[in-house]
């Protein structure tokens, strides 16, 4: 049952990713991206990462994609229906690069063979039962990784200041 669900989510995610790359209008591309994000959230749930699935929907599909949509509408690019795929030698070169990359990834997955959940999977399940869905990830986040977490706050502050300075119309000296 879980396997069937996983393959449904995987098929929708790959279809959405193809849509992002091939859709003509930027808004269509963005809606395909939301589809991909939602089905990836489904696979996160199947891999026992419930909190990340919720964050994926709320932050990624909810906040970041709306930011993209806002910029597309602000710049009035929604009617941009002309094909903008690169052609000629550049397209052939990108097919070669992508094929090389896919080959390397397939080879590596083939060499490493079947990945099996170790005893850490049982530890995660126990933590989920003991601390709850949020507590299981909050426990390491606020103990072992508290310094990176604080630095993340500084990063967000810098990003806010940078975005305002860059998008401001006239910076008067």
């Amino acid at each position, binding site marked *: 049952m879980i396997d069937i669900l996983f393959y449904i989510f995987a098929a929708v995610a790959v279809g959405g990713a193809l849509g992002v*790359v091939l859709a003509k209008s930027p808004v269509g591309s963005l809606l395909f991206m939301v589809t991909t994000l939602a089905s990836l959230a489904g696979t996160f749930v199947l*891999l026992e990462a419930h909190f990340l699935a919720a964050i994926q929907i709320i932050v990624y599909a909810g906040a970041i994609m709306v930011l993209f949509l806002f910029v597309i509408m602000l710049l009035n690019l929604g009617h941009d229906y002309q094909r903008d795929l690169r052609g000629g030698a550049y*397209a052939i070169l990108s097919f070669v690069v992508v094929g090389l*990359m*896919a080959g390397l990834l397939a080879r590596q997955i083939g060499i490493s063979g079947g990945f099996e959940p170790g005893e850490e999977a049982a530890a995660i399940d126990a933590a989920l039962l003991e601390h709850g869905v949020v507590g299981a990830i909050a426990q390491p986040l606020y103990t072992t990784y508290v310094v990176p977490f604080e630095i993340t706050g500084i990063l967000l502050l810098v990003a806010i200041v940078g975005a305002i300075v860059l998008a401001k119309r006239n910076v008067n000296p």
Partner: protein
Amino acid sequence: MITPALVLSAIIFVLGTFGVLVRRNAIIMFLCIELQLNAVNLAFVAFSRMVGIEGQVFVFFVMTVAAAEAAVGLAIIISIFRHYETVNVNNFNLLKW
């Protein structure tokens, strides 16, 4: 369950790379970079079943960085659009030779 998730992650990452290479619209190139970030997130979550909860913590950090990157990148796109009146990367030729 881990191996199919890794295969899915590889497929989405390759599709994202292809999008960055062949599209000319700066916003869609940016969207494809987000696709690559999501593929890496999926690989992290899959590996967290083998290595421990740290994989999920890293995904949390990746999402934060992606949000910051989206805000700054879109601000850059807005300021470029003000100058060139387009987001087609073919027209940005200041650093081309």
